[in-house]
């Protein structure tokens, strides 16, 4: 079997998706209720407990309400749930029941504010450290200690300090996003090819011109790599931050559906988190493409 251009990876993706959905569907099918071998009294107790309901034909079937929380829901159930949620995407039913579009909006804005502010601070401090070898070596031990701390570990302290879950969630994103960018920016500026700086020195460029004509564009590919790592870690942090703080968002959606014992809702929320991640990531890659260069 030669790999021809006609074998587009798209079709392979669809094929695997089909297999996955089929296996999922088969694995989650529950057999119809079989009353054989059960006495009328037993059936009555089961009906009383809400496990089964009487059908129009006089027989019994599993209670569809209870089915939802029994076992893992199949793909059709999740699809149904998604359909319902997407139809109500822009509906606000109550204080804690906002449509999915609002939830995505809250998460994206919360993420964006935290990430952008963290990136700005990290790039600024990173450049200063990258240009000053002594300062970099003096502060590097602190960065190394702060970097591996899970951003969620800061949460109690942040909540205690700012006393506002909204800002705490943003600060958790901030803490998640700052270190990788800071460390790589310092590294990128520090390892900028010395010829570029020599040319800048010969041409007597002003400090500011040196910064935005030579240092920033020169270190841009490394900085973007740092931003990408920060981006991933901030995206990972925003979901549990919302769960723990009870702030409306896609992470919160997953938790509230769990509290409702709606597993199909949990699965739907997981898919939404994935989709939001993909959208943010592709937006980021578009921006990154603008500033990188090849040598």
């Amino acid at each position, binding site marked *: 079997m030669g790999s021809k251009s006609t074998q587009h990876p798209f079709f392979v993706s669809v094929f695997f998706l089909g297999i996955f959905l089929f296996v999922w569907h088969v694995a989650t099918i529950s057999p119809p209720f079989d009353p054989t071998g059960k006495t009328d009294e037993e059936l009555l107790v089961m009906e009383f407990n809400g496990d089964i309901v009487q059908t129009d034909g006089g027989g019994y079937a599993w209670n569809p309400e209870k089915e939802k929380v029994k076992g893992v829901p199949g793909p059709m159930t999740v699809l149904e749930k998604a359909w319902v949620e997407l139809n109500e995407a822009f509906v606000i039913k109550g204080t804690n029941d906002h449509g999915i579009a609002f939830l995505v909006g809250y998460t994206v804005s919360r993420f964006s504010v935290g990430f952008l502010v963290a990136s700005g601070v990290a790039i600024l401090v990173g450049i200063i450290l990258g240009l000053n070898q002594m300062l970099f070596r003096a502060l590097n031990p602190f960065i190394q200690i702060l970097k591996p701390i899970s951003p969620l570990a800061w949460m109690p302290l942040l909540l205690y300090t700012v006393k506002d879950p909204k800002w705490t969630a943003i600060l958790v994103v901030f803490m998640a996003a700052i270190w990788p960018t800071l460390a790589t920016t310092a590294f990128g500026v520090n390892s900028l*090819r010395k*010829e*570029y700086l*020599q*040319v800048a*020195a*010969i*041409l*007597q*460029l002003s400090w500011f011109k040196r910064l935005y*004509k*030579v240092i920033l*564009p*020169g270190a*841009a590919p490394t900085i973007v790599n740092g931003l990408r790592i920060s981006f991933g870690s901030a995206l990972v942090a925003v979901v549990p931050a919302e769960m723990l703080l009870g702030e409306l968002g896609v992470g919160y959606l997953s938790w509230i559906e769990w509290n409702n014992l709606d597993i199909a809702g949990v699965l739907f929320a997981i898919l939404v988190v994935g989709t939001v991640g993909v959208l943010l990531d592709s937006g980021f890659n578009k921006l990154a493409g603008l500033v990188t*260069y*090849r*040598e």
Partner: protein
Amino acid sequence: MSFLSIDHVSKYFPSHSGNGTVCIFEKVTVKINKGEFVTVIGHSGCGKSTLLNIIAGLETPTEGGAILNGQEVSGPGLDRMVVFQNFALMPWMTVFQNVAIAVRSAYPTWSSQEIKAHVQKYITLVGLQGAETKKPTALSGGMKQRVGLARAFSIEPKVLLLDEPFAQIDALTRGVIQEELVQMWNATRNTVFMVTHDVDEAILLSDRIMLMTNGPSARIAEIVDVTIPRPRSRETIIDDEHYYKIRNHIIHFLVRHASHGQTDEGGDHAEPSDPVEINFSRQSTNKDETVMSH
């Protein structure tokens, strides 16, 4: 008073063992006249690029100093532009921008039209018209160094410093660019200080060639006058009566210093002796004396 002089310059680096220093070169003295093309030849690691960087102001000498036009060099400046071995073009800028940033710095009072015209003139001079909007990645090594030369010539520096400018260019292209450089230099008559280990390149381009011994404690042992009349081209210089004498002399020098490491002359260099001047025109009159003198 010469235009550019390197006055008793020594450079020491910290040694690898940690304590103490290694002497790269000692008490190097070179005098270069205005409009002269001078080349230093030596093996890798003899410190010739360090010497160039000291003139450029990119490195500071341990002792001594470089004096340009009566002023001691204290740092890099627009009057001494370097052409780098690895081109040192900003890969995020186009060809035009790479030259324009230099022109804008050298002539801050110019209007953008004047700057544009000036940049275009030098891009055309190196034959890169049509490639203005390309990034350096899209260019061959030869074209990259043409941009480097355009950038250097465009700011009309007092001294051009060429740091093995053609070492990373393939041999066929190298010859072409060397001749282009000859033409550009003929038009401008800049003072040029070049560092190379290509003997033919040195003979084609230079008025005088300084031969540097190997480090540590390298020194300029001989100065060869290139007594081949200008204008020169690669085709015609090989027919000159002095060409092979000069070439052989330099190659013998380099081979001698490659195999022996330390020089076989001059003893322990307690006080480096003045470089021997070699001139093959004069040599024909008092041949014995010059040949025997080293």
